[in-house]
Every structure is written in C-alpha cells, then in structure tokens.
C-alpha cells in the first residue's frame, strides 16, 4: 500500500492530478461548462499517460467540479453544475444574510466528508449495492422518479399548489422533442432545435441566474457598491462544528447520495434534490429550510459528492455506468486493461487499490483547493456590482451557447429567466421546474415501457418489493408527521 502511495506522489502523476483538480474547479464555477464536458475534453490527453496519472486527472476533475458548482450557486444564485441546483436554495439565502463564506465552508466540509463516505461505500460494500441497483427495472425507476417529484411538496415553502404547478411546467417542458419510445417529434412545431428537446442546463441558468440579474437590475440600489462589503474569514472550524451538530443529517444525506448515485441513469443532481427534501422533512426545524439554514446547505452538498462514489459502483462491478462521466471513464478503463466485472477487485487488484487511493487523497486536495477557490471568489466579488452583474449576464449567455454551440439555448435561457423573474414575484417556487425537467423523462419513459411490458396493468407498479418500499418511503416522508399525529390522538382517545 505504501508503495502505491509513494508511486502516486511522483511528479508525472502529481502534475496532471493537480492540473485536473484546478481545471475541475474552473469548469465547475463557470455556468454551462459541465464536469462531463471537462472529462470528455481531457480523455484524449490521457492516451499519453500511464493509468495512474490518467485516473488521477479524471477523478480530480469530477470531484472538484461538483464542489465548485456550489460557489456561483451560493454567491450568484447560478448553479455551476446541475448537481449544485439544490445548493442554491439555502446557500444563496445564507449569502444574502452575510453568511456566504460560512455556507461555502459548510459546503466544502460536507463535500469532502460526503465524498469520502461515498468512496468508503465504494470500497467496502460495492458488490451489495451493485446487486441492489441491478434489481431496479422500469417499475422501480418510475417510482424513483415520482419519489423525486414528490420532493416538490417539501421544497415549495408551504405553497404546495404553486409548487405542483411549477413541477408540471417542468414535466411539460420535458415532453418537448423526440419521443424516445416511438421516435416521434413532440411539440417541435417543425423547429429543428425543439426536436432535440430543451436542455435543462440553459433552463437552470435562466431560472436561477438570469432571473436574479433581472431582479438586481430592477432593484433601487447603488450599483457602484461591491457585491460583498468586506472579505471575511472562511470559518472552517465553525463549519465542522455545524456538521458535527447535524451529523445524522450528514450521514442520512450521504447514504441517500450513494444509493441514488449507484442507480444507473440517476446521479448527483437527483441525489442532491432528494436528500434536501428528505433532510427538510425529517429535520426538527424543517420550516427553516429555504431561509438560509445551515442544515439546508449541508444535506445537498454532502449528497452530491457522496453520489460520485456511488456512480462508480455499477461501473466497476457490472460495467454499467452510473452517469455520463463514468460512461466516458469506462472507455478509458478498457483502454488500460481494466475489465469491469465482479472479479475486477481480484483480477486488477493493484490498479483498483490505486484508483481508490487516488479517490481518497483527491478529497484532501479538494479541501485545500476548495478553500483557495472560496478565497479567490471573495476577491472577485469585491468588484463593483455593476461590473459583476454585466459579467454574469455575459457568462450566462456564452455558457448557455457553449452547451451545443447554438444560440437557441441562449433564447431558452432568457425565456426561463423571464419565467423565473415573474414566478419569483408571484411567489411560485422555481426549483420544482428543474426537478420536473430532470425527472420528466425518467417518469414518462419508465411508466410507458412498464405499462407496455405489463400489458397495460398497473399491478406490477405496486406489488414489486422495491416499488412497495419506495411507495411507503414516499408516504412516510410526505405524510409521516400527519400519520403519527393521528395515531397519537387515537391512542390518547382510547386512554
């Protein structure tokens, strides 16, 4: 083991590793540039490296990018990556209260610890989790999607009807484009751009980022003032104390992250939303979520990095990628002679141990690089607000354009920006729209294929064990409190 560690600290591995982590931070911070894109860009470079350097580079990018996405989510209300969407809710509110650095310190601590817990699960219980993940069929995936959508009721800040309207809008948007089952273009009106559907990244940038710029521009304020008044310390110790205080939320969120990450096709973004909903519902102070509450930052940030460990589980054990990054990396694994399968830990023991060590050490580097990134972002925000606002708008526009090199996505971003702006004004929550766009295809496709497979019967949707567990969990999370109250009243009545 020591040989492997010493081997990892050679310059030919260390340099690409550090560069990968910096690149990940950079990509994560810029809206529109995703970790998947960064890994895809870097893959050709790995052909000239040995396997350890290649995996250090790839893992370094993916771990830092997810954390870095939370920085603009906290300071600017623009999630840098899709997995940072849920971090906006309480992170930005904390920033508005002058606690932006505490939110990011919490974020950094929980991303690091959550990521480490995810890797620990990958090392020790991956065969069990992989077998669990493979039990998921269309029926279970449908309920997983519905479970995610049901989080709307929790994140809607007491306005459930408007929350459901928002989630329906997201679902409606997800139906635009080619129907996966039949290949028929829906609601495309002959427009080639609409045929390929609405990408949720420009929608997310618009809903959160562009709408916030609109909001700032229509506020009576002195635009020449800096975005943050003074650079304060990054309170890592306080963040550690808060994490310790909410240790059960941390564990719960990380486990949710690993479990959802292990499901092929799910991933860190869904994990973050679900863990936020679960944490809010099970917290003693659930009503404080969404108002800049520390637990609301802790839950999604622990979950999204823990999910990364989870995504590797089915990839290693069965060769089934958990998300797009692992799909790209599977190709690289085969190139280096690593054959995914149940015997991978035996047949490629040394290489696997090397990968695990890289993953663990990467989290320590994440802590250092993340700290420096928060510090650097503070200096950027010392610039006058009028300059920062214009820079944000241009980054929103070019970031949306960069997804498909197409200005159609920019119009989508502006359209959703306007929706976000007006919905904010009438008290309609924005997060469920993103939830609907992300989960719409999962719910629709699995419902339809499930119905086709079961000859139109709904029975398999409710009798399969995992379906039942998911339904019961959903009922418990949504109505658990009410049910317990009724039971308590009945018991007291009998007495």
């Amino acid at each position: 083991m020591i040989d492997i560690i010493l081997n990892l600290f050679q310059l030919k591995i260390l340099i690409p590793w550090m560069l990968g982590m910096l690149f990940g931070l950079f990509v994560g911070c810029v809206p529109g540039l995703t970790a998947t894109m960064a890994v895809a860009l870097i893959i050709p470079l790995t052909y000239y490296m040995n396997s350890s350097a290649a995996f250090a580079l790839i893992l370094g990018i993916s771990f830092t990018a997810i954390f870095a996405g939370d920085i603009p989510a906290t300071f600017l209300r623009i999630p840098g990556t899709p997995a940072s969407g849920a971090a906006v809710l309480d992170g930005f509110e904390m920033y508005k209260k002058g606690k932006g650095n505490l939110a990011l310190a919490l974020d950094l601590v929980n991303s690091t610890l959550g990521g480490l817990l995810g890797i620990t699960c990958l090392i020790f219980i991956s065969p069990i989790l992989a077998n669990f993940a493979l039990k998921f069929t269309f029926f279970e995936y449908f309920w997983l999607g519905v479970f995610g959508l049901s989080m709307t009721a929790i994140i809607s800040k007491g306005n459930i009807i408007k929350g459901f309207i928002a989630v329906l809008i997201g679902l409606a948007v997800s139906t635009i484009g080619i129907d996966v089952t039949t290949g028929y273009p829906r609601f495309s009106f002959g427009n080639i751009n609409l045929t390929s559907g609405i990408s949720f990244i420009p929608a997310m940038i618009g809903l959160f980022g562009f709408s916030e710029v609109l909001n700032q521009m229509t506020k009576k304020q002195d635009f020449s003032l800096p975005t943050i008044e003074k650079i304060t310390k990054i309170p890592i110790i306080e963040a550690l104390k808060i994490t310790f205080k909410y240790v059960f939320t941390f564990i719960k969120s990380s486990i949710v992250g690993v479990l959802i990450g292990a499901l092929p096709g799910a991933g860190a973004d869904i994990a973050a939303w679900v863990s936020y909903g679960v944490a809010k519902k099970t917290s003693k102070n659930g009503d404080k979520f969404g108002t800049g509450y520390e637990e609301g930052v802790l839950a999604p940030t622990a979950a999204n990095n823990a999910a990364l460990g989870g995504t590797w589980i089915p990839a290693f054990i069965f060769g089934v990628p958990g998300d797009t990054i692992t799909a790209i990396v599977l190709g690289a694994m085969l190139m280096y002679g690593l054959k995914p399968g149940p015997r991978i830990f035996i047949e490629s023991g040394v290489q696997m141990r090397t990968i695990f060590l890289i993953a663990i050490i990467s989290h320590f580097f994440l802590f250092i690089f993340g700290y420096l990134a928060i510090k650097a972002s503070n200096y950027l925000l010392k610039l006058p607000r009028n300059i920062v606002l214009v820079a944000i708008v241009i980054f929103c526009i070019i970031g949306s354009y960069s997804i498909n090199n197409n200005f159609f996505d920019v119009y989508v971003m502006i359209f959703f920006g306007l929706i976000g702006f007006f919905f904010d004004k009438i008290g309609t929550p924005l997060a469920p729209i993103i939830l609907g766009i992300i989960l719409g295809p999962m719910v629709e496709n699995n419902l339809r294929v499930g119905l086709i497979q079961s000859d139109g019967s709904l029975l398999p949707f409710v009798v399969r064990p995992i379906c039942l567990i998911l339904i019961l969990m959903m009922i418990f999370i949504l109505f658990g409190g009410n049910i317990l109250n009724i039971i308590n009243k009945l018991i007291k009545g009998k007495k």
Partner: protein
Amino acid sequence: MNEKLDKVYNLILGVILISLGIFMILYSQKFPKFISLGKILPGPSFFPTIIGSLFIILGGYLVTESLIILSKLSKNEKATKNFNFSKIVNDATFQNFFIFIFLSIIYLIIINYIGFYISTFLYSFILMKRLKVKNITAIISSILIIFLIWAIFYKIAFIPLPIGSLFRR
C-alpha cells in the same frame, strides 16, 4: 404583496394554465397512435395528455379560488388602484428591465453578423454605462470580460466563439 393583486396574478396564471392544458391535450391528439400487434399502447400523446389534464385541474382551482376571494374583498380595495402606469414606466428600475431585455435580444441578433468580440464589447459597454460605470472603467472591464471568455471557452474548453458572417471568408 397586496392580497387582491396577488389573487389577480393567480387568476391570470390560472387562465394561462387552463389554456396551456387545453392546447397540450388538443395538440397531442395529432400525435400518431402507438399500435403493436393490434394493441393500442401508451403512445407519444399519453404523458402530455396527463400533464394537460393536471394543468386544467390546477388552473381551474386557481381561477375558482381567486374569483371567490376577489368577490369577497371589498370594492374600494381595487387592485388597479395600486397601479400608477406612468409612474411605473418612468421608474428607472422598470426601464432597466426593458432596456436589458431589449439589449440582450439585439446582442443575440448582431452577434451572428459582427461576431462575438465586437458585439460583446458593445453589449457590455452599453450595459455598464446604463449601470453608471465610468467610461474608462467600462472599456477596460469589457475588454477583460471578453478576454476571460476567450481564454475559458475558446482556449481551454475549445468552444468556437461566433466570428460573424461579415468576417467569415
């Protein structure tokens, strides 16, 4: 927010939702049926019809609730009294909103002709001037923003930035 105004907005939202729901249901009826071995299976219109129906139900709820509450509220609390149209239109922040959207659309149109560099400089400079940045600061900041985007998107992420049809050979 004024309760009456809030309900007026809800009423408008409800009407939009009902219209959207009716449109989704009617439009999706045009989608082809999904028939396999003589059986009709859930086709492309299946999910949009469900969503359309839910839009109508929730929209109907909002409209009904808003109408009931609006009818209960006293007439002298008319929501329209809160509007002073000329005051709103002359408000600098309101103007910022429209100028910003207008400039963004113009930027997206001209970027195809004069390319990223010139159009972004103009867009950034005009926006900064609108937000009361000094000339020299606006020029330097605009150039720096363009440089940053060029470095991040073009040099590092290999994303081609629009050159503009005027400069294309």
